[in-house]
């Protein structure tokens, strides 16, 4: 086994991102979709950190801190929206919400 390098990290990041995308595209439960989005964000974070370490630039690490902070806020708002959706329609199935249909 060779040493764990940049390629491995990036592969993991890509795999995580793909899992996230598939989750967003295929799952109906809004909370699961939300979780999949979080996975995608963290996949992006992993890629940031990997590149930051490999080129020795702290900018990427700073960006990750931002993303984590924003994700926290987003989680609060997003969960609040899901709760509101549930109160409104007694379901969190994303396909049930088509009020913006043209």
């Amino acid at each position, binding site marked *: 086994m060779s040493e764990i390098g940049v390629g491995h990290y990036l592969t993991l990041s890509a795999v995580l991102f793909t899992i996230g995308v598939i989750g*967003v595209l295929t799952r109906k439960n809004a909370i699961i979709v939300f979780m999949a989005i979080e996975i995608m964000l963290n996949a992006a974070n992993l890629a940031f950190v990997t590149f930051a370490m490999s080129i020795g630039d702290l900018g990427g690490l700073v960006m990750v801190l931002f993303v984590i902070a924003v994700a926290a806020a987003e989680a609060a708002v997003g969960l609040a929206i899901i709760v509101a959706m549930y109160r409104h329609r007694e379901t969190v199935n*994303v396909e049930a*919400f088509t009020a913006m*249909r043209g």
Partner: protein
Amino acid sequence: MTAANWIWLVPALPLAGVLVNGLLGRRIGKGGVSVIGPGVVGAAFAVALALFLELSAREPEARTLSQTVYTWIAAGDFHASAAFLVDPLSSVLMLVVTGVGFLIHVYSAGYMHDEDRRGFARYFTYLNLFTFAMLVLVMADNYLLLFVGWEGVGLCSYLLIGFWFKDRANATAGKKAFIVNRIGDFGFLLGIFLMFGTFGSVAFADVLPSAASVLEPGGPLALWICLFLFVGAVGKSAQIPLYVWLPDAMAGPTPVSALIHAATMVTAGVYMVARSHALYDMAPAVLAVVAGIGAATALYAATIGLVQTDIKKVLAYSTISQLGYMFLGVGVAAYAAGIFHLVTHAFFKALLFLGAGSVIHALHGEQDMRRLGGLKSALPVTYWTMLAATLAIAGIPPLAGFFSKDEILWRAWDAGHPVLWAIGLATAGLTALYMFRLFFLTFHGPFRGTGEQRQHLHESPPTMTVPLAILGVLSLVGGWIGIPPAIGQALGGVPNAIESWLEPVFADTHAAGTSQAVEGAHAVPPSEYALMAASVAVALLGILAARYLWLARPELPTRIGLRLRAPAAILSNKYYVDELYDAIVVRPYNALSRFAWRVIDDGLIDGLLVGGTGAVVKWQSRVSSAWQSGAIPTYVTVFFGGVVAILVYYLFG
């Protein structure tokens, strides 16, 4: 120099009257309007008279005044100014328009007295506007400005024919006049365009002197320019085939008929042809057409006038007939004679209309001669002035009509047109016949109206009778301005004043040797006396026949009508020309309009184009709105597909 600076006042004064009467008319009341309305025209007459005197004080060659008020259009090569020209020809017309116009304005103040304050102001606004437009027409120094006046008088004619527009027939008559005139004006415009294309200018000073050098005599250019201009004249001056509007135009107030449809506007065509004589001299074929149409119209309208029962309709057909004489005159290149007849006709025909108006006024709107009669004692001033005018139009010497009509007949004969002369002579007889029919039916014999009308018979107020009297004097002596050499010599060398006055304008025509009129003073051909005697004899014959038929044996015309049923029906139905036009022009045109409305407008434009555009947009939006399903997963899928497509493009493309 100084006189020329005052030229603009002549049209400006009536225009000021338009503004005052139109804007303040209701405030200053009927009294104010009846001072302002005639007053401005009278003032314009005074200025015109001053200009005329200024001209006559000069050498014949220097009798031209002009004033450019402002440059109206300057676009590339095209140039037109609002400029006025006062030369012998336009000064004569200015005097007629303002002089006769002033008398008719004064008369109108009496005639229209029963109108309410608002109608009264409106009437004088229109009448002043007409005077303004007519002055622009005769004073313009280029064809474009002339055309502005030409359209202006047409507009006023329309407004005044339909003055009592609450009656549908009057409004329809106004529209008819306007639309028929439009046909003529279209020809006139084409003529102006062609003229600009040929000469590069529309100013008289550029076009007329160079006509002889630019145009080829008898060539197609000269032919078409003159023909198109003449189409305009035919419309405005009510000649065959566009005369049909004038009889209907009698729907307007009677002074309007006198001013617009007898004395001034309808003679504009004659003026225009005379003004353009340099062009017409280059197109002898068109001159022949002018003379032929003039003679044909003269005879044709006279025969219709013979059987009309409406007093104003008789006068309308008489006007058409006399206009035909004028065109006969200018058509044989006797331009001065045509203008001379225009002037005398303005006197006696205005008088005839005003006299008829006085009769109608006295009988509260009765116009049917079958219900008039015996008005001689009740309306003495009207009677005597009408007698003067009727004798004048019949051509009895030494009244006005004799000299001018005879001049035209003689010149027609002299120019080698015996057929036209014969038609003119026959018309002269018919004129005497139908005019004295009108006269006898109106003033002699028993009164045929109702008893109530007889009770209220009254002579008109002085505002109406004084203009009648003045025009009566002019009808008596107006012809003396154009005494032919044949008589002038016998009287000890009295000159033909109007001919020598107009000579500077028409000089080149005389130089061309079309006639011996000017040299005629030296050798009077004996034929001239014979022609004169013939026309006087024919006129007397007409009068005697009228006396026999409608005074001595009043039952005879009815019996003739019963015997000759078919010709009588043709005449009283005016040769069915209105019906003919209705069938060949009006109805196909209406059908075409209906087609354009139903098929082209409703079907093609509204249905296919407007509706089709809407339908396409609607269909397209239905398709694209299907994309907005509102289902977030679908959006995300599409969005992701797009991201993948872009990535693939940049990574592998």
